[in-house]
């Protein structure tokens, strides 16, 4: 298969949905250990947790948090789409599911970003 055919075989909505699902899953997996260790700071008292929370007020950290919420929402909606495709009868509304998944993920990300 030539590079051109290879690219064309991949450049369609379902392949992009696959890539977003995989990369968001990977990013969330890398984030989890830090998330758990950060929350564990509460074991050493409220002051220790506050030190960490002050660190998270930096603009770049805030931006990363918004991206993580977006990725979590994208992984959730993309996963719901996969479960629907695998376990519900085929009805030919795959692309509608894709649009629904993307829209719901964006809505969740915006909801988080706008209340900050």
């Amino acid at each position, binding site marked *: 298969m030539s590079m051109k055919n290879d690219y064309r075989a991949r450049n369609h909505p379902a392949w992009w949905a696959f890539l977003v699902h*995989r990369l968001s*899953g*990977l990013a*969330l*997996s890398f984030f*989890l*250990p830090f*998330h*758990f*260790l*950060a*929350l*564990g*700071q*509460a*074991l050493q008292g*409220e*002051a220790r*947790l*506050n030190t960490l*929370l002050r660190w998270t007020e930096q603009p770049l950290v805030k931006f990363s948090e918004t991206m993580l*919420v977006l990725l*979590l*929402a994208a*992984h*959730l909606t993309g*996963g*719901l789409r*996969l*479960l629907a495709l*695998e*376990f519900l009868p085929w009805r030919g509304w795959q692309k509608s599911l894709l649009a629904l998944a993307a829209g719901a993920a964006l809505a*969740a990300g915006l*909801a*988080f970003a706008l*209340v*900050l």
Partner: protein
Amino acid sequence: MNGVEQGFAAKPMGADARAKIETWLWIAQRASAALLALCVLVHLATIIYAVRHGLSGAAILGRTRGNDAWLAFYSLYVFAIAVHAPIGLRTLCQEWLGWRDASLNWVIGAIALALFIFGLRAGWAVFAS
């Protein structure tokens, strides 16, 4: 089910056992996904609630400490994560890195255990009284 086919091709010995493991991992991945769908929805809602109601250490711990129902919910969430994330990482290592020998299963098992322990610890830190 790439892993099943690759399992057969790479090592004919014990192929049935390998296929069974792959099947169980596939089922565990879907079952944990269904549970996580609910947990993540609740978690997204709590995140948005938290940023609206104060994110200082006192505000957070004042809401969470001593809340056994939330401790139980987040413990279940952590369990589902510890099942789901390592299986996904395993697939990714197989397909993108070509890492398919037995060492992968040990590393993935260790990741699952670490996520479970540190996740429970995080939940305990925030929700225990």
